[in-house]
């Protein structure tokens, strides 16, 4: 069978050899009918690929649904999002497959580097392939595949991203892929070391459906800790309470957040050994666990809602808390106060007083404001930083309504004062 290079593809003997090997090992319609095959080269990332037709019964035996971004690292996790086998769209897809629907543009990588029995690593179309596999006994048709060869990690990540752009794949999944491509598994190891993730557990692919830390949340914690740390180095102790602090939420999606990248390029693996960061993270996890348990065990006093249980993981709460943890590194007494879990009382069953926070509204807020610690706006993060900074002034306090009002009043007052003097 003839193998040709498309005119804009740079000829490569290695690629031709790989493609030839593919057709020797995988039965296709092209080889059966002796149709010439063309090797294309992607104009953006230079990756090589072919298009071919493979029978469902063949594909189902050699497709690997657990494709990994880093194929050489045994610790690398499955990169694709979880299959949604009860989703209406999937059920329709499966019904169609059982009736003989032919699917096209299924994106795979031919890779013998791991799970060698299944060399077709899927990057786009895992639901279609799963539907084909489940119905192959009812209808066995040819399906269109785009097969990539010899991908490096960056090419693989991009193939994964572009293959999923139209499928409503969450930003959390994109974050997870890009994180591993750019910085390896340091962030995941850090989360496992602290206890945010269990050993051998990966970040969830849809954060909003899980109760676990996501890549975005973990990145935000680290960025804010170091932002606070750097700010704390230039502020005298007596001036700590005269500032408005501006925690930062890392961007999510198809590109790596710039500030996070700067920090990781500077500290990198040190996040696994930075004592200050580790202590802060452990204390934060303690707060999260306490909040979670207190909400769960007091259903008569506070609704057992996910947003209340996971109040500590709400982005504005987490960013405010971690920023203050960094800020107070050189002020040990206040830092230890910050690390103490806020008091609970008969009226305040959970340390973060999630319900009171949700009901909170300042006069300057629009009528639609949804409460403290409910969104990731800069204003909300400033307020939460002030709540925790104010809390660090005493070794024992509850975040009751009056306390929250005073903290927010301080931020509003300082903001107006700053503008008035400007």
């Amino acid at each position, binding site marked *: 069978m003839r193998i040709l290079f498309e005119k804009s593809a740079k000829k490569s003997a290695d690629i031709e050899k790989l493609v030839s090997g593919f057709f020797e090992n995988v039965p296709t319609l092209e080889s059966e009918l002796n149709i010439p095959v063309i090797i294309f080269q992607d104009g953006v990332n230079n990756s090589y690929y072919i298009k071919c037709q493979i029978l469902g019964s063949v594909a189902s035996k050699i497709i690997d649904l657990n494709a990994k971004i880093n194929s050489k690292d045994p610790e690398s996790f499955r990169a694709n999002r979880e299959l949604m086998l009860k989703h209406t769209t999937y059920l329709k897809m499966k019904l169609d497959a059982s009736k003989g629907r032919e699917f096209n543009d299924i994106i795979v990588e031919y890779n013998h580097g791991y799970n060698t029995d299944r060399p077709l690593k899927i990057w786009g179309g895992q639901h279609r392939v799963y539907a084909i596999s489940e119905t192959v006994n009812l209808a066995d048709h040819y399906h269109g595949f785009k097969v990539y060869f010899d991908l490096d990690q960056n090419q693989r990540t991009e193939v994964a991203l572009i293959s999923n752009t139209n499928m409503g794949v969450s930003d959390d999944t994109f974050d997870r892929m890009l994180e591993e491509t750019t910085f390896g598994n340091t962030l995941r190891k850090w989360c496992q070391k602290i206890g945010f993730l269990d050993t051998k557990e990966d970040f969830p692919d849809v954060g909003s459906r899980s109760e676990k830390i996501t890549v975005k949340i973990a990145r935000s914690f680290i960025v804010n800790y170091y932002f606070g740390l750097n700010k704390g180095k230039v502020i005298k102790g007596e001036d700590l309470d005269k500032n408005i602090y501006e925690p930062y939420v890392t961007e999510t999606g198809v590109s790596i957040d710039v500030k996070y990248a700067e920090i990781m390029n500077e500290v990198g693996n040190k996040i696994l050994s930075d004592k200050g960061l580790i202590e802060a993270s452990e204390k934060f996890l303690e707060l999260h666990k306490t909040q979670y348990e207190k909400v769960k065990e007091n259903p008569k006093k506070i609704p057992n809602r996910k947003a209340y249980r996971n109040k500590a993981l709400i982005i504005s709460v987490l960013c405010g808390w971690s920023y203050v943890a960094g800020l107070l590194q050189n002020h040990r007494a206040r830092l230890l106060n910050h690390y103490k879990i806020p008091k609970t009382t008969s009226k305040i069953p959970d340390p973060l007083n999630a319900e009171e926070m949700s009901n909170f509204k300042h*006069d*300057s807020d629009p009528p639609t404001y949804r409460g403290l610690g409910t969104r990731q706006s800069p204003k909300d993060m400033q307020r939460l930083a002030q709540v925790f900074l104010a809390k660090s002034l005493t070794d024992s306090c509850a975040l009751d309504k009056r306390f929250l009002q005073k903290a927010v*009043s*301080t931020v509003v007052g*300082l903001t107006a004062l700053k503008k*008035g003097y400007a």
Partner: protein
Amino acid sequence: MLTYREYLFYSDKYIQLAEAESGDKLKFLIPSVLLSWIAIESFINNIMDDFGSVPEDLFELHERSLLLEKKVIFVDHGSDTGKFKLDQTEYRRLEEKILFLIAKFGNLNEPYKGETLWQKFRDLRDTRNNILHPRRNMELELTIEKAYKYLETSKNIIQFVSTNVWHKKISF
């Protein structure tokens, strides 16, 4: 405690009740006027509390005296002898608080006390005083139109202070 938006809402409700009343309307118009005034009081007092919550040395002592409605006294005994400090409560007029906030944060180039809004505010103040400090020889002439005018004045004063202190308009 209610918010200024809620006081404004109730003030409006009372006017609507007055409109629907075929007999004596005053029983609804009087609370409406008071609620329009209370809305301003609530709004201004809360802003004063915001500034009262910032670290002490960001304001002068006499400014904090106004913010916290505390009297400045001269200490002539004990460890603070010879110093000034804030002591017992000393209530200040709403008008003074507004004047302070605008002077401190407003950056206004033009005097505003001669403006129509300020005149309307004084009119509302006088009516409120007449209601709260009644005398036999006073006439209380309240109409639905006047009550609406006071409600509007209350909103305009709140908006005026908001744009000068927070530099943003608020929605009611």
